[in-house]
């Protein structure tokens, strides 16, 4: 799904004319980008939190040539912590996820911190 699909979806769902829906999506992206550029976090209830984190210089490795070290410059990265609604993605009934899932033998054990 790309921006256009999202705009169409929003227009259909809210009845807001497409041009305005497009402007709205554009604005949301813009405001979020500006906020992260300033270093401020974004907190969207239910959806999640975006944080700007400092990344120290590190040594990475080229997965294709594992014996070569590659320097990763220090800088900032973004960490996204999914909120409740995004964590419950595989909730039963919510669109069956393809294939993978807990293996049959694994009894569903309580997942720490999954639910309050």
């Amino acid at each position, binding site marked *: 799904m*790309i921006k256009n699909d999202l705009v169409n979806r929003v227009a259909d*769902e809210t009845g807001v004319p497409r041009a305005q829906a497009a402007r*709205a999506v554009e*604005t949301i992206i813009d405001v979020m980008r500006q906020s992260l550029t300033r270093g401020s*976090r974004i907190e969207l209830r239910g959806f999640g939190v975006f944080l700007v984190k400092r990344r120290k210089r590190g040594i990475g490795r080229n997965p294709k040539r594992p014996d070569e070290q590659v320097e990763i410059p220090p800088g*900032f990265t973004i960490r996204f912590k999914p909120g409740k609604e995004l964590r419950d993605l*595989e909730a039963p009934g919510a669109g069956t996820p393809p294939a993978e899932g807990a293996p049959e033998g694994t009894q569903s054990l309580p997942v720490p911190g999954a639910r309050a």
Partner: protein
Amino acid sequence: MESERPVASRAEGTTTKADLVEEVARAAELTKKQAETVVDSVFSGIISSLRSGQKIELRGFGSFKLRLRGARVARNPKKSGVKVLVPPKKVPYFKPGKRLKELINEAEPSGPGSDSP
């Protein structure tokens, strides 16, 4: 209508939905109420796209995907660290886009001016 509701416990420098709603209302010439519906619709659209197993790509910002996290052994923090087997599950993952990465590294957050390249 324009009740200046104090945003409860809003940490300094945190952008919330209220901020998005305000900007959307202004930029798209919508009422606050319409803008709120639109903002909600945007994020629920992203959620349902992921829910149906589809990734979503927002040019200039980033993309949201699902990643499979393998089974692992975790500890129950409430029961003095009893080991529990956590089954594999899909977790949402956000990958910042090129433009966004450049932006956050150009302008040092919380730092002063950006003289760096």
